[in-house]
């Protein structure tokens, strides 16, 4: 299972508490995890990635294992520790604005 940590506003929007556990078929990549997340919680479509282009929204970041994966292409494999469920995949609202 892939563990995903959402920022507080998106947890409220999706009505989830704590981490989200996702069963991701095939290889755990940035794109496949986000696809699975949006399939489970359709309300998150458009809030992390833009509709249509699926580009990451400008003030959203992806972190895992103390690495910034935000600029990696969607087919990037997530670290093994994330794929094994030992570490979470973090969706983060950037520190910006008020």
């Amino acid at each position, binding site marked *: 299972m892939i563990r995903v940590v959402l*920022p507080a*506003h*998106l947890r409220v*929007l999706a009505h989830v508490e704590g981490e989200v556990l996702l069963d991701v078929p095939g290889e755990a990549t940035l794109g496949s995890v986000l696809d699975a997340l949006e399939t489970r919680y359709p*309300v998150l*479509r*458009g*809030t*992390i990635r*833009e*509709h*249509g282009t699926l580009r990451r*929204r*400008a*003030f*959203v970041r992806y972190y895992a294992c103390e690495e910034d994966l935000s600029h990696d292409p969607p087919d990037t494999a997530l670290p093994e520790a994330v794929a094994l469920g030992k570490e979470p995949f973090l969706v983060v*609202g*950037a520190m*910006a*604005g008020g």
Partner: protein
Amino acid sequence: MTGVRVLVGTRKGAFVLTSDGRRERWEVSGPHFGGWEIYHMAGSPADPSRLYVSQSGGWFGQVIQRSDDGGATWRPMGNEFAYEGVPGTHQWYDGTPRPWEFKRVWHLEPAADDPDEVYAGVEDAALFRSADGGASWQELPGLREHGSGPAWAPGAGGMCLHTIVRDPVRNGRMYAAISAAGVFRTDDGGKTWLAANRGLRTEGIPDPDAEVGHCVHRIAMHPSRPDVLFMQKHWDVMRSDDAGGTWHEISGDLPSDFGFPIAVHAHEPDTVYVVPIKSDSEHYPPEGRLRVYRSRTGGNEWEPLTKGLPQSHCYVNVLRDAMAVDDLDSCGVYFGTTGGQVYASADAGDTWAPIVRDLPAVLSVEVQTLP
């Protein structure tokens, strides 16, 4: 008529203020959607329990919320606002062409007779419609594809379609106002649009009388007289007596003709309200005195309404969507400020009292008169 529900959108959440017909004691609910910008909330005239909310933010984009029980519970609806076809370009601040790009919903306008039909005015300027209660949205591309579209440019707040006014008599007639393009009118339900800016004069654009390029801040109509429109422009308060065919100035004796909102009394089509602001760079009341101005003559002659409003050291603004009226026998008038106050008058503006004083900056105020 038993009461009112005031829907307040703020920079950090939504608030619902309710009272009985006396409008003296208020219940305050909120913040709903705390931390998000609530550009607008609107109730369906066909079903007052049906509310729509535009919830947005720089981090996570656009969300549309809907309530079917008057704001007790909410559920997120569709948030995909995709322009039809290849959207083309408009002008950017530096004069270069820039592709249309959706940013947020500024204004929601539910239909008069169907709670599931609602229009959305968005930034970058375009008009969308939902016929399924907000689950999905389709653009009415004829407006954006008006021949002048490539010449439209954003105002300081962005290139937003901020006002939607539907003619209650002529089926298919509707007005949309865009900063900084101007007013457009459709007579065929949104398929085709005409620029409706003749008579507007804007210093600061190359051709002051241009067909488009005017920073219209807000337009208002009384439903009993739909050919008469009132406008608060960037500078100038204007009036049209021919459904936007021509406009003439009615600023008259106002202390400043700069401002954002404009509203019409619920029962008196020639009674109009504005909130003068000192200037385009000094967004606060002249002399630090918060005054609503009322004309009972359809413009030109204005009286200051001050009882209950701060008359010293007041430097708040009232934004374009932050003033509304109720339909009770004694017309109520409401407005919210960037300082977080929401003021109400239950006597058509003669006296005012704050409902709340310390909300986040108020972006929008709508009122529902409850049966």
